[in-house]
């Protein structure tokens, strides 16, 4: 039996997907593992806890399909990007991993911009506290003994794969989220490393995602022994592959607790990272408070009510929510200087009911996602918008997003673990290239396009209000 094994190391749990040669799919998730916050705005995890969770979940997944040592399994791991893993000379974590959600490294971001003024041009993005480089500099400044004991700087998925194969490597998608990769050459930027006096020897070689990641030889169950691996990609790129984003112009939106726009470009553009394909780049625009905005409103107005029931109220409000606007910056405006626009409801009158507020939140998230794209100045797809994540189960929200962008939509429940399995498949020549992986066959829905006119009008107003409320705009 030929099997593709995709592992997604998430921030709260890992998911393992097994794809058989007949393309049947089965998935299993681990119980959640904890995030530690020893100080305000810190977020850390023990890499060893990841290993244990992955070992157990992989075994359960293989057992669930009856896989044994005689089956041909190929492994590809994807996982949370940006997070910093430091290994000492013995291969043990030198400290807990600093996660992408950690906000401690703000001063280091300023330092990087001062010492490498063209850092955003080189990497595609300005330094953010979420990125690996500022985190690494924070360790150097605050925990110099830890850095002095460090032999290797890794990303989460690369740590897990190294744990199985002992081969040090990373791929250019994950590397481009560190803040140290030259986005054009897809190599570590010596300009950045020199300016910041960082040792290139700490970093793993950068490879193609489908390159050989080594053979599993340690820490694994019998069914996984001697299994070949692909180097793999960062989780957003596995998501992109699962959503079929393999051509310039393709776009998908993940409506989760945060809302993320994935858009493919054929050249490096501001805000982009290296796509798994060597000639493409992936824009990654995220709104921290996506579905979280809805949860927040539910907790404020109807604590205890199910999110689905609470959200269903929105169906009785009209497009435009009776001229009510929601600015979804409950976790700040990403990338905005000077604090950005505040989270807000604007345009309230006593006639507004809960249904208007709920719908305004759904519309506000969609407006902001479109505004993010407009700020980038990148073209939108004309054929279809792929919607994923828990929010994509909500038909009204899908219609609103589709209406705001003026593009038909389709939904898919394929995810990063599935995308990782596809990468394993490409590495084993199941498919000759990225474009040949099984296409999405979910139906294309045009029902949201009926509201394009009014949503366009409200979108223009939304932008006006965001600009007006942005300090120093």
């Amino acid at each position, binding site marked *: 039996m030929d099997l593709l094994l995709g592992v997604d190391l998430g921030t709260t749990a890992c998911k393992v997907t097994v794809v058989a040669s007949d393309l049947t799919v089965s998935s299993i998730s681990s119980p959640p593992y904890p995030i530690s916050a020893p100080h305000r705005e810190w977020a850390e995890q023990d890499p060893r806890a990841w290993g244990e969770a992955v070992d157990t979940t992989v075994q359960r997944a293989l057992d669930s399909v009856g896989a044994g040592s005689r089956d041909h399994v190929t492994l590809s791991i994807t996982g949370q990007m940006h997070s910093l893993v430091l290994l000492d000379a013995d291969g043990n974590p030198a400290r807990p991993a600093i996660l992408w959600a950690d906000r401690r490294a703000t001063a280091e971001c300023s330092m990087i911009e001062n010492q490498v003024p063209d850092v955003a041009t080189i990497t595609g993005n300005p330094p953010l506290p979420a990125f690996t480089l500022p985190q690494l500099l924070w360790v150097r400044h605050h925990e110099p003994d830890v850095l002095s004991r460090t032999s290797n700087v890794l990303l989460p998925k690369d740590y897990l794969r190294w744990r199985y194969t002992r081969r040090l490597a990373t791929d250019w998608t994950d590397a481009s989220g560190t803040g140290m990769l030259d986005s054009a050459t897809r190599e570590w930027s010596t300009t950045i490393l020199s300016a910041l006096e960082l040792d290139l020897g700490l970093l793993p070689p950068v490879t193609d995602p489908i390159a050989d990641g080594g053979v599993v030889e340690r820490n694994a169950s019998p069914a996984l022994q001697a299994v070949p691996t692909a180097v793999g990609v960062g989780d957003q790129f596995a998501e992109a592959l699962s959503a079929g984003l393999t051509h310039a112009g393709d776009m998908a939106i993940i409506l989760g607790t945060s809302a993320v726009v994935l858009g493919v470009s054929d050249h490096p553009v501001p805000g982009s990272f290296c796509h798994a394909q060597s000639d493409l780049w992936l824009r990654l625009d995220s709104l921290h408070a996506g579905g979280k905005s809805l949860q927040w409103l539910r907790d404020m*107005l109807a604590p205890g009510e199910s999110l689905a029931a609470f959200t269903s109220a929105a169906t009785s409000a009209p497009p435009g929510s*009776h001229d009510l606007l929601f600015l979804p910056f409950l*976790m700040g405006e990403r990338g905005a200087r000077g604090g950005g626009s*505040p989270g807000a409801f604007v345009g*309230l009158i*006593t006639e507004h009911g809960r249904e*208007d507020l709920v719908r305004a939140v759904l519309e506000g998230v969609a407006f902001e996602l479109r505004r993010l794209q407009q700020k980038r100045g990148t073209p939108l797809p004309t054929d279809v918008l792929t919607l994923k994540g828990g929010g994509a189960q909500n038909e009204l929200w899908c219609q609103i997003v589709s209406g705001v962008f003026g593009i038909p939509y389709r939904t898919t429940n394929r995810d990063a673990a599935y995308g990782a399995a596809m990468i394993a498949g490409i590495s084993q020549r199941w498919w000759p290239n990225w474009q040949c992986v099984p296409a999405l066959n979910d139906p294309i829905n045009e029902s949201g396009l009926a509201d394009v006119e009014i949503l366009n009008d409200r979108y223009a*107003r939304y932008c006006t209000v965001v600009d007006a*409320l942005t300090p120093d705009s």
Partner: protein
Amino acid sequence: MSTVGIDLGTSGVRAVAYNDEGQQIATAAEKISLKRPREGWVVLDAEAVLRSAESLLAAVAGEAAGLGDQVRAIGLSSQGEVVIPVDRSGQALSLAPVSMDARGESAARAIGGRVGPERVQQITGQPLNRMFSVYKIAAGDAAWRPPVAKAYRTLSDFVTARWGVAPALDWTLAARTGLFDVNAATWSAEMVAAAAAGDAPWLIEVPFSECVPSGTPIGTVSGKAAERLGVPSGTAVVAGAHDQAASFIGAGGRAGSVSTFALGSSDCLTVETPQRAAGIAGTGFATYPWRPGRWLTLAGTAAGGWTLDWYVALTGVGDADALLAESSTEPPPVIVLPYFAGSGTLDNDPSGRGAVIGLTLDLSRAQLTRAFLESAGYELGSIVAAFTANGVPVGQIRAVGTGASNPITLEIRASAAGVPLRPALGNASARGAALLAGVGVGLFEIDDIPPITVGATAQPDPNTVDWYTQQRQTYRDLYRVLRPFNQRFEVRRATDRGRENLSETTKGQFSNASPDARHDARHDARRC
């Protein structure tokens, strides 16, 4: 002997009897319902209000008589701006638009265009605003025009005329029609002519009632009405006042030393001066005399209390007091603009809209609740600053209305406003009306009316003075930033309404919560 004050509010009617010492001896109240027959319209049934007033009067009169205090005089306090076309017998010919009814918008624009907003305010003492009665009359259909309509009444003279009293109303309520010349204390021929010239020629033919100062006897209850009302035949009816004025009088307001801040359906500061206050042209501050040499100036937020009620209803928490009591003790970073039915009178901007700005994921409901309470304080602080800047002393501020009874919420408002607030206990507006009735029959002198009981002063928290000084500035800045945006919405809404009218379609109300459900919690309706 006793006097009875009847408060005809937006969400309820209340009758209260007082003895010769000004002490409350009986009270009764009923809710009334507002209806929204179409978008922008908010109306009440004046006949239902009359029935409530009569049954409540009968109840308290009976109770007072049982205590040996027969009713000697009756005074009315009433919400302003309500106008009713009546037939020859004083029966209502139409449901009556209340203050927040928006039908007068285009007429206000047209009449204001002919007279000029400054001139409108100079004559009437009221800003150019669609809320005033004249603009609603101008938008009236056949029931509002001759030969059907024989007279226009405010809620107060509508009620008293049905008791056999010659139709008369006091200056303060007359001022709230938008047709009263506050300087000459008579109906304004110029305003009537301006309205008649374009939108409402029938205004020349259909009269309003005679106008008199508050506290003037206007007649006695007829024998037939006395029987129905349970009062002695010949009981005096005395001109009362607009509810804000009545609250001011009832709470012991005095020029230069005591002003009142009513926390009802609207929030309103009422300040007295010996002459007409200068320097308020261009604002939405309203001013009128209630007696010769006694002027009141009003400023506030049209839907201040309603905004709070809206929030309480939205949370689904049945017990408003419980929700308000859980307000956070620390000031939150979020700011509420309480302009859910137009801006505050300081800006006189009907297109003003509400906003909640500074929302974050870690914001708690207790913090949000506090932000809604603070908004009334921010507006009050801005208004006090405007009065002070114009040389009008405000003095001590007494808080009246349902919102004044909770010391925790009052302190939050005091801190946000940066001014101490002292609660006046009891029904200030009904009390004012009853005391005016006593003045009318010689029980009291106007300068020597019995004092009201006051509670402990809510002082601004000294630890938050700097914070709130900054927040008040931010509050004003946010309004200015959002103003152009709101005005663009207003234009579009007017266009939409025009389309609806042409097509004769009636859209349903866009909320499933009725005005009753939202606003019944409040009885003390106050409009500024």
